[in-house]
């Protein structure tokens, strides 16, 4: 309880600092804009996957893993959220790791009142690319597999003939409860790994130390403020999750391309709103807590 009370002024200070960072240095948005652009290109490619000439490349892959029907209109829109989520996983690991490192380096320069040098920030992140890549890969894979294991576990449980789990019906478990579980998993995994990149780029720590250090910071020192700074912006994404939950309804009530609009909105919200806020606010929190 005492930690929560003392967290409020700290969070206020972090929010103020983060706002000032963005207000005075719009260049801080650049890594996130680049990532959003790359993600948008990936989305466009996934959207055009069933069409000539892209079908020659994507056709065999989609046919093998998901089936022929997903290469036809409008069934390709049912697969689009899955393809986008997989491409986000790959892009976050390959590009996102580097760009987040770059953003943290820029934030560090701003915090130390140094002139923002995009090239230098990029170089300092590029030097640690393998470590950044590994951190984001571990974090993303852990999230992906945990979510998959829980969903599969629930599915197998109900397929085995059980009609209820903890007095609740399958529809509730596979719907809203699973969404909440996924949200909590995402929140805790992201929060636990969130200081690994600042520790790597700002603290100049080695890979393993930056990960263990991040766990230590989160669980022992900054649990509540981190959960608030990571969790609150993530709430903005809930409407997109809900809209993506049942593509069939969207296709039927509106039009198939509506899925594309929702996914594009998802990119805008996650890459241009949530990621900048979470990355820079937690980097600020790290810097402020280190100063103390």
């Amino acid at each position: 309880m005492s930690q929560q009370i003392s967290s409020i002024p700290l969070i206020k200070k972090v929010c103020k600092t983060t706002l000032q960072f963005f207000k005075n240095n719009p260049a801080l948005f650049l890594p996130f804009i680049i990532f959003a652009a790359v993600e948008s290109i990936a989305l466009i490619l996934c959207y055009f996957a069933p069409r000539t000439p892209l079908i020659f490349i994507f056709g065999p892959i989609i046919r093998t893993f998901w089936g022929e029907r997903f290469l036809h209109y409008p069934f390709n829109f049912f697969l689009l959220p899955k393809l986008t989520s997989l491409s986000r996983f790959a892009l976050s690991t390959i590009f996102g790791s580097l760009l987040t490192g770059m953003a943290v380096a820029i934030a560090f320069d701003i915090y130390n009142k140094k002139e923002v040098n995009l090239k230098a920030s990029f170089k300092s992140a590029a030097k640690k690319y393998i470590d950044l890549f590994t951190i984001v890969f571990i974090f993303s894979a852990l999230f992906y597999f945990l979510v998959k294991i829980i969903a599969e576990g629930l599915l197998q449980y109900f397929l085995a003939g059980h009609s209820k789990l903890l007095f609740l019906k399958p529809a509730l478990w596979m719907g809203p409860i699973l969404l909440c579980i996924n949200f909590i998993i995402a929140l805790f995994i992201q929060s636990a790994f969130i200081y690994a990149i600042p520790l790597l780029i700002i603290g100049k720590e080695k890979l393993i130390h930056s990960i263990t250090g991040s766990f230590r910071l989160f669980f022992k020192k900054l649990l509540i403020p981190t959960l608030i700074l990571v969790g609150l912006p993530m709430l903005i994404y809930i409407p997109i999750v809900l809209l993506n939950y049942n593509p069939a309804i969207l296709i039927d009530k509106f039009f198939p391309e509506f899925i594309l609009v929702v996914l594009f909105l998802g990119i805008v919200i996650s890459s241009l709103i949530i990621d900048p806020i979470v990355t820079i606010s937690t980097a600020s929190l790290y810097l402020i807590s280190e100063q103390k």
Partner: protein
Amino acid sequence: MKRITALIILSCFFAFLVGCGSDQYAIEKQYYQAQKQAEKIFKNPHASPPKELEKVVGILNNFAKKYPQNNLAVSADFDIARLYIIKEEYDKARMHLKTLLSKYSKSEAICSEAVFLTGNSYQIEDKWDLALEQFKKIMREYPLTLRGLNIPIYIAQYYKIKYQPDKMLVAYQEAINHYQALADKHPDSPPAYNAYLLAAQCYMEIKDWQNVINTFNTILETYKGKVNLDAVLLDMALLYNRELKDKLKAKETLERLIKDYPRSRLVKTATALLKELGNK
């Protein structure tokens, strides 16, 4: 920054180029849009004005004319007939279906569907004799199509629904004769295999269990080693157990299933059944 902007513009241009193509996907999209228009009428046929019907029929007609080689053109053509039927414009529907018979004369499957829909239109109008005429035409002219194989049972089921047991029994007997004749005419062929299975289904409907077993035995003798017969053996065992109360034969059949098809997904069920029979 300039490079990134150039890359984005290039990607958009590329996407635009891809989007302009008239490939199978573009055709499917056009058909989906036409279908959505038709759906409005299907959902509420009495509330939609006649102009709307003409508009949608026009769209579907244009689609079928624009892509005559595409499979979706056939679907569009049938959508038109179904639209006329749902709007109770039966003569127009039949006229359209008649044109389909000449348009797709090379495809027996399509023709059988056109005749079936014609029969359906009479059935909806409560003109069963005329409908039956069309269904018999399918039996005569397109017996090996999917519709042709199923139509004798469809006729018998009509009498069942209408509570006409005498006519139903006659129809099932006719169906059995039809399937026997088909199997004799095309021995050892896939249609003959289907005909035997359908004949067994007919015997089941009239509760002639011994003839079901005889038909299954014919299938087992004729198609052993050619087709997976695990499902036939399981059905046979269930029949021995439940209807003929012959536990010994049921056990023998299940043991044969396990021996002949050890990798079958039905082995688990067969083993459980054997265990159950052993306990009794």
